[in-house]
């Protein structure tokens, strides 16, 4: 979306959410100062900074189930074994995505044979190595991808989400 509509969106959001983009709202959750510094997201939403796992818990091709930004939003954390778009970690191959299909909210499973997420409802597929790009299917957005960072201890944190999680008006529920 263009800068212009982004600006309008900001104006709109500020009016409706009631100051959600103000620092006071952000400080209530997580560690916003780090998130603000690192996130590439242009957003008004107060994303928490949430520890998902440590590097040691991951093995190539097997995804871990977590939730983010709240317990009602299941996500998949995955080490692909090859460099991925927006991948983090020493091999830039760790990615995380919403587990809800952006078509009608089916719960996705990762299949290592295809290297893709599959939806059981209407057979959509998404490519985790390509930023959640839709491979095929009737979804109207690529799969929402989590912004990740890895700290010095090897802990993986989620700090935001690119794209709208299925079944929500905003990624952060009000």
């Amino acid at each position, binding site marked *: *979306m*263009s800068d*212009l*509509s982004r600006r*309008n*969106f900001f104006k*709109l959001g500020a009016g*409706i959410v009631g100051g959600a983009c103000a620092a006071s709202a952000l400080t209530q959750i997580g560690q916003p100062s780090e998130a603000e510094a690192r996130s590439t*997201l242009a*957003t008004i*939403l107060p994303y928490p900074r949430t520890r998902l796992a440590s590097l040691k818990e991951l093995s190539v091709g097997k995804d871990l189930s977590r939730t983010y930004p709240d317990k*009602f*939003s299941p996500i998949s954390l995955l080490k692909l074994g090859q460099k991925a*778009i*927006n991948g983090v970690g020493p091999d830039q191959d760790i990615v995380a995505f919403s587990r*809800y299909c*952006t*078509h*009608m*909210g*089916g*719960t996705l499973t990762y299949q290592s044979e*295809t290297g*893709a997420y*599959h939806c059981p*409802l*209407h*057979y959509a*597929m998404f*490519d985790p*190595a*390509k*930023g*959640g*790009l*839709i*491979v*095929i*299917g*009737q*979804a*109207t*957005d*690529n799969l*929402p*991808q989590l912004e990740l960072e890895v700290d010095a201890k090897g802990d993986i944190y989620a700090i*935001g*989400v*690119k*794209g*709208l*999680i*299925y*079944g*929500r*008006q*905003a*990624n952060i*529920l*009000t």
Partner: protein
Amino acid sequence: MSTTHHGEDRVPVPPSDAQQFTTVCSYCSVGCGYRVFKWPQGQEGGPRSHQNALHTDFTKQQAERSGKWISPSMHSVVTEHDGRRYHVAVLPDSDCVVNNGNHSIRGGTHGSVLYGQDRPTADRLSYPLIYRGGNQLPTTWEEAIELGAHVIKTCLDTWGPDAIAMKFFDHGGGGGGFENNWAVGKFFFSGIGTQMASIHNRPAYNSEVFASGDAGVAALPSAYLDAELADTIFLIGANSYETQSIYFLEHMLPNLSGATMAKKQRLLPGEPHHPGKMIIVDPRRTSTVAIAESVAGKSNVLHLQINNGTDIALLNALSRIVYEQGWHDQAFVTNRTDNFDAFKAMNLTQDLNDAVRITGIAEAQLMQAATWIAKPKTETTRRRTITLYEKGLIWGLKNYENIASAVDLGLLTGNLGKPGTGCGRLGGHQEGYSRPAYPGKRPPVNVDEVAIKGGGSKVFWVAGCNPVGGTLNAQQFRLSLARRTTLVNQALDQTAGATTQEKAAAILKTVEEGGLFLIVQDIYPIETAKYAHLVLPAAQWGEMNLTSINGERRLRLYQKFMDAPGVAEPDWKIMAMMAKKIESLYRAEGKIDMASRFAGFDWKTDEEVFRAASVGVKGAQEDYGETTYAMLRTLGTNGVQTPVKEIAKGLPVGTTRLYENDGKFKFISASWPGFPSQVQQLMNDPRYPFWVNNGRANHGWQTLYDDARKPLVIGREPLPYVEIHPLDANTLGITNGDLIELFNPYGTVTAMAVMTDANRPGHVFMLFEHPRGWLNSLTTDYVDPATTIPYYKGTKAGIRKVGEMPGIKETVSFVPTNRV
């Protein structure tokens, strides 16, 4: 590194008092119902269910299939003529029986291509453009229409009606509908009287199913319900998961999974029922095949991986097996059909060994298919089979006999006019055809060859299509168009400051010497428009009221909910402006006869044209009788299935399926003709070893006119792609993402390689229309002489690697699409 598109992480919700409209998808024949919400920018509904028009609690995560989720692609901000800005959300309608709230990637992303000056649709045509000194510059409707009218009239007066050629949409949905089609037909057939007319995706003015019409079977005889009730669904040349997605997901798959068993038992008591079986005729192992197998189990899906261009041999072999087994419907053949003997003498003499050799399909599979199509369920209960075909058959070799052999099999097995049966098209576009009769003959003249490449016409008016890439043998068409339109440019370059009449005189002189005056009417500055002398901006879906029917003849009103950009107008109004101007020019000369041919374009509203168009559908599958917009508003997204039988209690009464109690049909004999000389020459030349099949795919619609402006779609398909078998790729030193050139004597095109086992070695599949590479540069100039329909689906080419395209291959996915 990331270029993957993601929408916003928040969308506004419509307030309780948002304006609401009903509409239908503008794209494919399935015609899913949609609801449109519109409210002023700066306002927004609250998150609680009583605070928004969706009555949904957005403070909570919704369950799957809630039908209340606004994806970012479903939302937009639009600007009206008065400068006011509104939020618009276009959401699938859960109350529509076509889609039950489901949507495809195509229809579900309508919100992202509404016109906006600050969006990728900013390049919508907003003002007429006129050629001036090497540019196309904005001008007034008055000047554009005056020049067009003078040129058309002088050419008509000098050379007669066939000096004016056209290639126009004829379909329903976006850019079409009964309203626009009627005005187009009235202008060109009642007004001009030209035979040099052609339909958007082909070189002539023809039906794609002449043979079905000759057999007495309308193109869309069945209801989507029939696919839920059938014992067997027989798909020919259709990749329905990707191209009729919601018909496949909401009506076919529930049959295969057994989810419609209760419905079968309720509606069709007294006979055994099982979950449906599916037969798919396709040279590719598509996603449709893979999903059907996953849902029904492999033992209930039969994929007939046919050799390109051999459908007639297959279908006749199936008819022969059915007849020899005694599985045909003798009562139906006796009571409802004619010409069986000719059919028997030709179709039923198809040698089975020859059929196996020609089609590449094993005899056991032929027997299996015939069994599933026609073996009676009990001694007294016939099997219910619905045959649904689309472009693989229509655009295969050869159109007339392809369709005939499919319809013949339907007639032989009595699968017409009963629940769970049918034999017709799936449909590409929706339908909305109503026009005065075409003044030409059958077979219709090949306009590409005679009028454009052959120089027969002097004016060419193109609307709602992009023939420089979309027509057959497109490279030669393109080069011809460039050469002839340049002559007019050169003449116009000498007319600075001239009056319109002086310009028209200069144009007249140059078209006499081989020039071509080109008018392009569209919503976007498409590739064909680059050559135009006049570019006319059309309104589209959502910017006017229009009506169309879908693949089960479901007629609905697609409501206007926003203004068109700039001074863009509905196509019917543009035709009316031109007609009125030509009428006035003839009146001024006292030529009353000619003036009267262009009279009667005084409609004030969309509905007046809709009512006028009703005479053009009388007695046809589209017949909507006395239906009005008010009735259709009441009926919302479910509308009424045509033909309308009567108006009762103020509402139209429709027809679920055709031929339940009437209809007499005719067998059309057909036999496999072998390949035409153009294709034979390619087959005999080792420089062109690859069969090139092609088609539409899941993400995009037709020429990608909207999709090129959808970041989601163009991000997925930044270039056209070619599916190539890994063995062939290995031989040629090609890998995923390489740019490759395909070439033959007709033309050349480049595309991105995608390795997949979906095609047999030696066979490739290319996306058929993409503005960054037109497959049709490779198709031959062959058309079926009986129908003037091209053999789009079969050509041959050589392939060479051009190189890598860094920055593209990294962002595109190469995960095979035919996996579940």
